């Protein structure tokens, strides 16, 4: 981890690590966007990846989900490389929600959530009572059961995103990766959604890795915060240690003060805008 500028302890996080990236390089069409990245994802916790646009956080997530191949290094799930494990075996233990997924016009919520059962089915065992139970449980957990028979396209952005989360929950995997699940949603909806994800991690002991755009939302919910820049991890640690003014300046070029939310004890960043106001006033 010598390449990290801010090496911080993970003592407050769970010890286990079923998913890890080891020296991973990945990208599109030969260009490596992520370079030599190693990350141990703590079990049963909410890990959040942040970084400026194009920093490689989504690329890293996709490589860990075996959606993208790795050009170097490997991603281990339960000790076995995910890119070499039969993809359906991986899908029984690791779920992935891509960024901005689109449901076909008219697909009903229950049908969407039922797709999550695919890795548990086979040609001979198409649909079982177990599948029905998992779908109902997932819809209840994501609070979309009341929409079960409505088309996904009729719902609001936040409700739709909860349907997709229900789909990955129905997959009943211990590890869930989500790529920008809160983008384009109202702040209130973002907070509700992140609360749902945190409950899934803490109450059900599942391992979540989430790419986020909103820094304060990330700071409010992350157990482990990972900051990326230029295809590398530059800071990682519990929010209290990793979410610093220096890190924000270094990673985002953002000059900000860090305050502490008196209620949660979590850090909050307030961008310095005084100079901007002064310039505008001139």
């Amino acid at each position, binding site marked *: 981890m010598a390449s990290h500028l801010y090496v911080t302890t993970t003592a407050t996080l769970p010890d286990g690590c079923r998913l890890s990236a080891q020296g991973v390089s990945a990208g599109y069409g030969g260009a490596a966007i992520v370079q030599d990245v190693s990350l141990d994802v703590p079990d049963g916790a909410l890990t959040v990846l942040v970084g400026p646009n194009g920093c490689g956080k989504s690329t890293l997530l996709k490589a860990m989900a075996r959606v993208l191949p790795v050009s170097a290094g490997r991603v281990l799930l339960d000790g076995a490389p995910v890119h070499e494990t039969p993809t359906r075996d991986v899908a029984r233990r690791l779920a992935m929600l891509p960024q901005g997924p689109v449901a076909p016009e008219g697909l009903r919520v229950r049908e969407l959530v039922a797709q999550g059962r695919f890795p548990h089915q086979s040609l001979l065992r198409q649909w079982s009572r177990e599948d029905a139970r998992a779908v109902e449980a997932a819809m209840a957990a994501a609070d979309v059961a009341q929409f079960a*028979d409505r088309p996904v396209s009729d719902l609001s952005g936040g409700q739709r995103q909860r349907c997709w989360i229900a789909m990955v929950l129905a997959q009943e995997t211990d590890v869930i990766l989500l790529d920008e699940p809160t983008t384009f949603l109202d702040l209130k909806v973002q907070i509700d959604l992140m609360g749902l994800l945190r409950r899934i991690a803490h109450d059900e002991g599942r391992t979540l890795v989430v790419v986020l755009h909103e820094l304060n939302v990330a700071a409010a919910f992350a157990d482990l915060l990972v900051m990326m820049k230029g295809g590398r991890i530059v800071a990682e640690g519990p929010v209290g240690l990793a979410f610093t003014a220096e890190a924000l300046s270094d990673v985002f070029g953002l000059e900000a003060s860090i305050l502490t939310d008196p209620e949660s004890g979590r850090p909050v960043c307030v961008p310095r805008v005084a100079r901007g106001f002064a310039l505008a006033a001139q």
Partner: protein
Amino acid sequence: MTAAALPRHGVAAWVAPLGGLVVLCLAFGWHIAVGAKTIPLGTVAEALLAYDAGVFDHVVIVDLRLPRAVLAVLVGASLAVAGALMQGVTRNPLAEPGILGLLIGASFAVVVFVGVFDLASPALIPLVAALGALAAAMAVWGIATAAPGGATPLTLVLSGAAITAFLGALVTVATLLDEQTFEELRVWLTGSLAGRRGDILVWTLPWLTVGLVIAFGVARQVTALAMGDETAVGLGMRVGRLKALVLLAVVALTASAVAIAGPMGFVGLVVPHAVRLFVGQDYRLVVPWSALAGAIYLLVVDIAARLVLAPIEISTGLVTALLGAPIFVWLVRARL
């Protein structure tokens, strides 16, 4: 919409499929009853269930009319299923064998094979049609991928139109150059079920079977694929293999339809959309219902082709478009 009302489990779940099969049987019987001489439905049933070679109507039914009805069922089912698969996998509501150039590719290959090389072996026609459909699909895909922005629904349809126009012109040139050879092909090129020889069915059946078996096998994965490649990978699907299988199914089904009846437009476009109005977007339902509805649709169209201007028979392919276009306009207004 009605989609939500279709029950999945229990006795009620069997009512809709049974009803569909009953409609298919009625259309099948009606199709056989219609012709130069109208035969009562009772006699049709009698001929099919208790054949008597001594009765003239029975011979007409079994030797002449039954094969045509069977071909109509197979062609309608093939084209509708091919269209449904293509629309799902390309996430393009306009995808179907006709619009994306597969029909004309298959037809062009058959025209060249039969006309230029003068080889009319029915055993090879489905293979030639399949190679033509595959080549056209590759060309359309290649052109669309090379366009700025890649293979979007728009670029796919545009390159499909280009290939269709280009190969269509070549087919016309070929038929003009050698009118005698193409006399028989000209009717076939408008899409026709008239006077097809029985042996073409024997040679087409393996292709049809392969296409339909794959289509039914991959149906449930097509739903996830319609939600994006990354979603499908996340669910544990082998997306590359899946797409190759779908391409194989679409090519086999298109080739079968073309080998039997020539390029028959609109069936693959209209039928799956109409089916989705009733069963929704789950391809486990869309694929079998498309097969059923496609069969019924082509039976009805072929009845109309023989009834509307009786005793003159219109080419079935013309009626599919004449009937299909207004239905499609209605579908667009209703929902698309």
